[in-house]
């Protein structure tokens, strides 16, 4: 049985798994990016309150493995509060939190460290703050942040695999179940690797290209 045969025979199961993975990604990416950007901007503007909160939470999430947070929210937290939550939502919440604070910290740092001289140059040229933000600050920040944010989102796609460990029927779990039926680990995991390669490699290449295209020597040699 070849990789292609497996994909054809089990295409319904794979498509269902893929659908769950994509739904997870849709939640994690959209909520994480929107929430993270807002958190980062608020954190940069209120460094002593929200800034410290974002920074601290980002530190905490980078120190605690995502899998531990996921398991903690799935088992002990639900037992403590005596609730049963669909594993999909638990996984979505966990990964969204990780993504939100990751994005938030990137944005907070970029906004806080934005070279003030570019804003001063805009002011003395008669530009109002709205125009400075629109034509100077946002384009520079966007170019600076986009590659890092893309790479982070690829990392979040990879992290959806953890959801399989709390019984979310996403792509990896589907692959495991098919493997337990037909025992073709080489073919199945090769197919899975190819899937991630096809999806993630272009995003990583795009991030690398954007970094090369837009990263300028701000030091003005």
């Amino acid at each position, binding site marked *: 049985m070849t990789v292609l045969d497996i994909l054809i025979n089990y295409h319904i199961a794979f498509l269902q798994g893929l659908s769950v993975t994509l739904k997870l990604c849709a939640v994690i990416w959209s909520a994480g990016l929107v929430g993270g950007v807002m958190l980062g901007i608020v954190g940069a503007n209120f460094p002593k309150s929200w800034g410290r909160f974002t920074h601290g939470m980002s530190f905490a999430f980078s120190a605690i493995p995502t899998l531990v947070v996921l398991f903690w929210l799935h088992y002990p937290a639900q037992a403590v509060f005596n609730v049963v939550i669909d594993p999909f939502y638990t996984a979505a919440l966990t990964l969204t939190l990780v993504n939100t604070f990751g994005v938030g910290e990137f944005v907070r740092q970029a906004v806080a460290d934005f070279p003030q001289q570019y804003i001063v140059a805009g002011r003395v040229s008669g*530009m109002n703050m709205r125009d400075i933000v629109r034509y100077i600050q946002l384009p520079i920040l966007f170019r600076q942040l986009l590659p890092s944010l893309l790479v982070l989102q690829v990392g979040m796609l990879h992290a959806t695999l953890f959801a399989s460990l709390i019984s979310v029927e996403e792509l990896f779990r589907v692959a495991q179940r098919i493997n337990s039926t037909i025992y073709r680990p080489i073919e199945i995991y090769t197919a899975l690797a190819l899937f991630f390669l096809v999806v993630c490699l272009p995003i990583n290449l795009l991030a690398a290209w954007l970094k090369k295209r*837009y990263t300028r020597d701000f030091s003005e040699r």
Partner: protein
Amino acid sequence: MLEARNVTFGYDAKPIVKDINLTIKPGGITVLIGPSGTGKTTLLRCLALLEQPQSGEICIDDACYRYPWVPGQAFTPPWPKLTTVFQQLFLWPHLTLRENILLPVKLQNKADNDHQLDALIEAFDMQDFIDRYPNEASLGQRQRVALARALMLKPSYLLLDEITSALDVEQIAKILSYLKQLRGQNIGIFIITHLLGFARHAADQVVFMADGGIGESGGPDILKTPKTERLFQFLSVIAAAS
């Protein structure tokens, strides 16, 4: 008239600029000279209203700004009627040099941008690099662009901080001769420079700054016959170095 009255500025209790009184007239060139670290750039930033002095008053024509500044007090920005070219230039890195020059003027809705830009490109020899990004241009090229960006705004007062430091002799001559022409357009120019030759030939007023205060000021003849020992020493050091 751009006027500073009893302006004092410092960090914590240490004054950097002490009790400065200075007048920059429209159509005149005021040259500020002095040793490094004596507060020249800080004074320029105060005049540009980019720093808030601890005391004093800065008047730009009819608008006066009194210090110490009261938080919440209404502030009417004087820019770009008064504009500045900094020593570090501050060109926006995501825009080409042409876009750097045109962005502020387009937002001001000033007409005839293209004709004016073409004239500046020719005057400052910028044809070969005008469509490059700042990181692709030399410091001298960027200095010319930063000056052009300010001139496009047709300011009434132009404050320039060491803008010829990276230019060759030919470019310096071109830019300084261009600045002299601006007098005819009634623009008041305030320039920090070490080019004493320019001060001698073009300045209407020379101000010598030392230890945060004005050591001596007057016409260009103060460079020939200084009245204070401190200016005499400064000129002697420069003469010995050159």
